[in-house]
């Protein structure tokens, strides 16, 4: 493995559980990756159980929450994802596995596919073409913008602010159309291959119009006390094991884009967005400013991505090996650890950001009240699709 090494015990930042192993920022260990122990369901006088989900209008996906409450406060909570999909990739060629990997979670499909391909390339010792690396960054940043817009739209919807909600939905649709125009598919399905990205980035600069419009809505939201009051002091989480926007909202400078040299983010340069509040408002701020920061990366890429560059067909040095790669998905670290033999996947392990974020959410939600629940939940940007996956 080019970017990681095996270690007896963890060193550096802990990312989370990946299959039977534990992933840190530069090493992978065989030690048990300790789960966060949620406190046991204590008995409270007058408390009763309230069930939210698994299928309800406020929830976008199927998950059930068992909430212990004494009226309004959330005293204890358990979550049970309701859609568990068994996805078999072992025994498949990387191309066949790709069809399944890109359907693990469509809103984060670029992150999943790119992390998986980087792991395969690592295992096969394939040197990536520089233009392919730049194009991959473009996909990841477009995905980040779309996702952050969606999270903010869900937050404004929870606050019943209809005008910004529909304005944000308009911008999400415009972003989807731009992605569709560049890559032929609104969720990047069927565009990524080993050492190849099948998109035409000529119109990439159009993202600037979308982000310009977003800025005005964002500034308006920052002045809206009705909105801000629902987010501030809601779901406070200061946890060194958190990832992505949840960690950056607590002032932790965690970002896979700058921690690893897998993709040339350092050459392009960008600023890590941080906040100090560690609450839903901090997570909202981080996402808002990241949209602006990602648009700067994309504008820089418009000058250096050359679509006419003939990407060379890949030349694999190994047809057997192990590879590990991590990317910064819109909600934090996403990693794949794969083993291949004779060009076929013999084992694949996934570390999904939503899995880590669900644990973070569960920690932050205790002691909050029902009316705050939706804001806190949406601020983590969790997708049950990728939590409920058993990769076989």
């Amino acid at each position, binding site marked *: 493995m080019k970017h990681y090494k095996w270690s007896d015990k963890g060193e550096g930042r802990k990312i989370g559980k990946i299959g039977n192993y534990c992933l840190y920022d530069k090493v992978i260990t065989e030690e048990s990756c300790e789960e966060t122990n949620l406190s046991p369901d204590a008995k409270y006088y007058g408390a009763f159980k309230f069930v939210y989900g*698994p*299928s*309800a*209008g*406020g929830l*976008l*996906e*199927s998950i059930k929450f068992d909430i212990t409450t004494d009226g309004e406060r959330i005293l204890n909570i358990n979550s049970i994802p*309701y*859609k*568990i*999909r*068994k*996805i078999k990739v072992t025994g498949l060629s990387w191309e*066949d596995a790709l*069809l*399944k990997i890109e*359907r*693990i*979670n*469509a*809103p*984060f*499909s670029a992150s999943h596919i790119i992390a998986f391909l980087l792991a395969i390339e690592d295992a096969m010792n394939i040197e990536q073409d520089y233009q392919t690396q730049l194009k991959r960054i473009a996909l990841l940043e477009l995905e980040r913008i779309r996702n952050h817009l*969606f999270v903010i739209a869900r937050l404004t919807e929870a606050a019943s*602010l*209809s*005008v*910004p909600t*529909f*304005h944000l*939905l*308009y911008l*999400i*649709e415009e972003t*989807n*159309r731009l*992605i*569709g*125009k560049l890559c*032929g*598919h*609104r*969720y990047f*399905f*069927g565009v990524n291959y080993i050492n190849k990205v099948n998109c035409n980035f000529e119109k990439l600069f159009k993202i600037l119009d979308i982000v310009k419009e977003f800025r*005005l809505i964002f*500034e*308006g*939201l920052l*002045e*809206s006390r009705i909105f801000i009051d629902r987010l501030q002091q809601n779901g406070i989480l200061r946890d060194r094991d958190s990832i992505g926007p949840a960690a950056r909202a607590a002032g932790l400078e965690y970002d896979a884009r700058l921690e690893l040299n897998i993709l040339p983010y350092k050459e392009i340069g960008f600023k890590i967005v941080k906040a100090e509040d560690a609450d839903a408002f901090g997570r909202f701020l981080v996402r808002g400013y990241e949209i602006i920061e990602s648009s700067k990366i994309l504008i820089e890429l418009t000058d250096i991505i050359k679509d006419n560059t003939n990407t060379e067909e890949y030349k694999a040095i190994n047809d057997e090996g192990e590879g590990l790669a991590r990317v910064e998905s819109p909600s934090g670290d996403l990693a794949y650890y794969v083993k291949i033999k004779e060009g076929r996947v013999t084992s694949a392990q996934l570390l999904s950001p939503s899995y880590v974020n669900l644990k973070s959410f569960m920690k932050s939600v205790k002691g909050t009240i029902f009316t705050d629940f939706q804001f806190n939940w949406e601020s983590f940007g969790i*997708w049950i*699709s990728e939590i*409920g996956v058993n990769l076989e």
Partner: protein
Amino acid sequence: MKNWWFLRGVRKGILTEKTPKDIAEWSTEIEGKGVVNCPTKAIENGKWIAERCIFCRRCYPNYKPNLNYEISIIKGTQKLFKKSFFIYPIDAGSCGGCNMEIKLISSPQYDMTRFGIFFTNTPRHADAIIVMGTLTEKMKEVIKEAYNAMPEPKLVVLLGTCAISGGILGEAIPLEASVLIPGCPPNPYTILDALIKVKGGKK
């Protein structure tokens, strides 16, 4: 005042589209000739079967999308819902793509409410249940309960290839549907077109 949302909304004007714009190629009708190695057998004897297609491009360039988004299969309409049609989306085991696209038909570009289509938060108020994703074990009972909770007359809409045929990832939804909306995920225009048709309305 930046947060005078009403004024901001008025200033933005009307964004709703009368005619379809900027449709992404993949998830529209596929046309072509020849034998191809299709992973879901969506092309058999040169015939394209929309219900099975995951739009993976394995058939390209022999087969190409032609931008026709009206690919839904209507098996029956219910004119009682012509004026107002309340839909309840339920996720059996999707990748999140169908969830996003069904949400986006409420965006200003599509504005589903102008056709009398609304989301409801409970199956008790629903005229149609929209099921997306492959059938997962735990959701079997939930779907059954939601379906039984709906008042008569009721419709079933299967959204996306996973729900219709299982696609590449699993099992289809075993409910008799009034409309099948193919796509991986389906285009919002396809979804809107299908919902208008099944409620017996006009575009």
